[in-house]
């Protein structure tokens, strides 16, 4: 008899986030607050991927992300794909898009930046990474300093 693959997590409605670099999977989970929600979430990691070697995937039932949340994903996992599922069908499939600028979301890494001492919203120009690493960095609109990928801290 043919051995069937176990499909634990076909969701009726919700969002599937694919092509997350395996090492950043838990970061993405934390950024999206998936460690605190009530609806079913399944994830897989260290799955084989042609793009990354190892990738992660997250399936979130009954949840559709707002643009602001999608921006957050793009900063950490710029190659990620979003699949919007309605009634078991993929209604929409699209890559996350790096915005040209972002407001809020991240901290400026410059301790002497005004944004770190004034109750205000941060603003950055997004600098896309090179073709190999895709590592995004952020240039602060206020102090002009660049926060590199490894220092991006989500507020």
């Amino acid at each position: 008899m043919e051995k069937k693959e176990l499909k634990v997590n076909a969701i009726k409605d919700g969002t599937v986030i694919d092509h997350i670099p395996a090492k950043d999977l838990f970061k993405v989970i934390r950024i999206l607050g998936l460690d605190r929600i009530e609806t079913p979430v399944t994830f897989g990691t260290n799955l084989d991927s042609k793009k990354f070697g190892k990738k992660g995937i997250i399936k979130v039932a009954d949840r559709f992300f707002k643009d602001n949340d999608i921006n957050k994903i793009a900063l950490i996992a710029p190659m990620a794909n979003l699949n919007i599922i309605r009634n078991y069908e993929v209604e929409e499939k699209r890559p996350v898009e790096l915005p040209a600028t972002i407001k809020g979301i991240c901290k400026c890494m410059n301790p002497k930046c005004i944004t770190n001492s004034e109750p205000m919203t941060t603003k950055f120009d997004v600098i896309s990474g090179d073709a190999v690493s895709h590592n995004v960095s952020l240039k602060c609109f206020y102090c002009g300093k660049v926060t590199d990928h490894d220092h991006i801290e989500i507020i």
Partner: protein
Amino acid sequence: MENKSLISITDFTTDEILRILELAEGFEKTPEPHILDGKVVATLFFEPSTRTRLSFESAVNRMGGRVIGFSDPNISSVSKGETLKDTIRIVSNYCDLIVMRHPLEGSSRYASEVATVPVVNAGDGANQHPTQTLLDMYSIKKTQGRLDNIDIFMVGDLKYGRTVHSLLQAMSPFSPTFHFVSHPKLRLPDEYKTFLDSKGVKYYEHEQFSDLIPEADIIYMTRVQRERFSDLMEYEKTKDVYVLRNSMLEKAKPTMKILHPLPRINEINQDVDQSPKAYYFEQARNGVFARQAVITYLLGLKR
């Protein structure tokens, strides 16, 4: 029109910079003691900088304007924990233009977003100080009779020196040739070299400069701060290499001038002061004209 501020030198187009220099020349030739009659300028100094504050206040006074403000944040509401936003909103009600200096980077840009009057950045931490750049350019134009094709030596701390970074950006449209002279640890950051490359500006880097002085039209000296060296022995050994002495000027062009944003420590020897090539004190005087120009320009006052 949205109220216009001057936070970074890159806020001005090259045409606007030329306009400011033209206005400054006008103020030097013909004082305008009443052009600011009835106007109030606030000078908000969240960190002390007596020289810069006096220069701005002199500029306002020479045009008949009134000055309010503070030079010590410890005696203002800032010490009670008021946010910058609230301070700026309130002061906007009291004046026609704000000049501010603040220890935090980006503070002036933020202030210009919340203010209802123009803001002039008089220094935000290590970030920007655009009126310094304008007075540097005014000094270059005045002493050389032109801005184009100037051979500029920049000496000292090229890594952290914001005046150096702003000046090279603002001069780049005028086909300059730069010579960057510094200790290897204080070299010009790559981002500025990339910038110059993209503009097709010629530049050279040196660790010593005494033999090259005859080529210079302008020598722009900057202060090397001891704190920049983790190894103080290295600082002691190298600091004298970047000191300008009168004896080094013998073969310099007769029209060559020495600039310095001041304050200087020992990087320009006292014996240079009597040389006609020493221009740093007049340069400071030019700052008043440049600031008069900026203030009237931002207020939209016609000469």
